[in-house]
């Protein structure tokens, strides 16, 4: 799953960086507000999940491992 998440991050950020699993995607500059929104849309499509508005909290998507945990919880 993490490989797919990293591919999504690279696509929406248009950067080829490979973030560490616990690296903040915001602090590293990989994701900004708009890329984060695109990433959530891509997660929904790729993993066939629905992210409700109430879960649109940047803290839930700050690192690859948090994203993976969130996706797993929505399956």
């Amino acid at each position: 799953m993490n490989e797919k998440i990293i591919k999504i991050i690279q696509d929406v950020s248009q950067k080829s960086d490979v973030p560490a699993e616990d690296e903040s995607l915001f602090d590293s500059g990989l994701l900004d507000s708009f890329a984060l929104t695109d990433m959530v849309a891509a997660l929904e499509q790729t993993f066939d999940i629905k992210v409700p508005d109430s879960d649109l909290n940047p803290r839930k998507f700050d690192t690859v491992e948090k994203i993976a945990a969130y996706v797993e919880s929505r399956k």
Partner: protein
Amino acid sequence: MAFIRGLGAYVPSRIVTNEELAVRVGKAASWIKDVSGIEERRWAAPDVAVAHLGLHAAKDCLLRSNADASEIGMVIMSSGSNERRFPGAAAEVAKGLGLTDVPAIDLPVASAGTLFGLALARDLVERYRNILVIGAEKMSSVIDREPMDANTGILFGDGAGACLVSADLGRLKIVDSLMRSDGSYTEALHLGLTGTLVMNGMTVIMQASRKVPSVISDLLKRNNRRPESIDWFVMHQANQNLIARIAKAVGVDTEKFYSNIARYGNTSSASMLIAASECWEEAMSICFAAFGAGFHWGALLAEVEK
């Protein structure tokens, strides 16, 4: 029924360029344009009050509507940057128009304030006949501090917009509206009694990117309108990148979303009516939309009566 009888606007004369602010926030002027679409904004002089801005827009609106102030039955005024906790500026603006015996109500809703004002005016206009909706903001008084916050200081400008809603006169009929509020996000965007404006930009962008297209789609669907059939989408001018994203989500070209943010920046609740005052005269249909602190958001559909 409710009609848009006319619109007006006012912005201060002082232009504040990206170059001027870039020095203060330690960023390049090109960065400001890239992240916001803003090239310049207007700031009022320190001694100019929110009511002063609102009164100018109100008079412009009446002039362009061929209306006399004596016809106004109610004033609804939105501002999130008024100088006083109370009273708000509504009664002061009404007084400036010579109105001292009509209800003048304040909506401290910030960016979605005039959308809510128009929606409420539609519902109240049968009783009050002509309702003047005003949004006036002096955002420079909120963000012009040292050190200036790079994320908020670059965004905001001062100005005012006004719309006269009439029960029986006007080219565009207000067909329907949707207003929504969710207090879960109060801390994400707020201005306290002291201190500067607080904005969690990521939360605001994430929520607005979802909620605005959703409320527009809901409004158009329940009125059997397709997005491509709308002449103009006139949204709160928050950020050009957000406007483009919402246009894409709605399924229309960005050019369908009228934008003047490059010239005026984000004037909070004033922005939607300032923008509408520039584009409404030729439009056969307009879908208004706004999103802001609260969160409050909504959409409103106006079109030539068929």
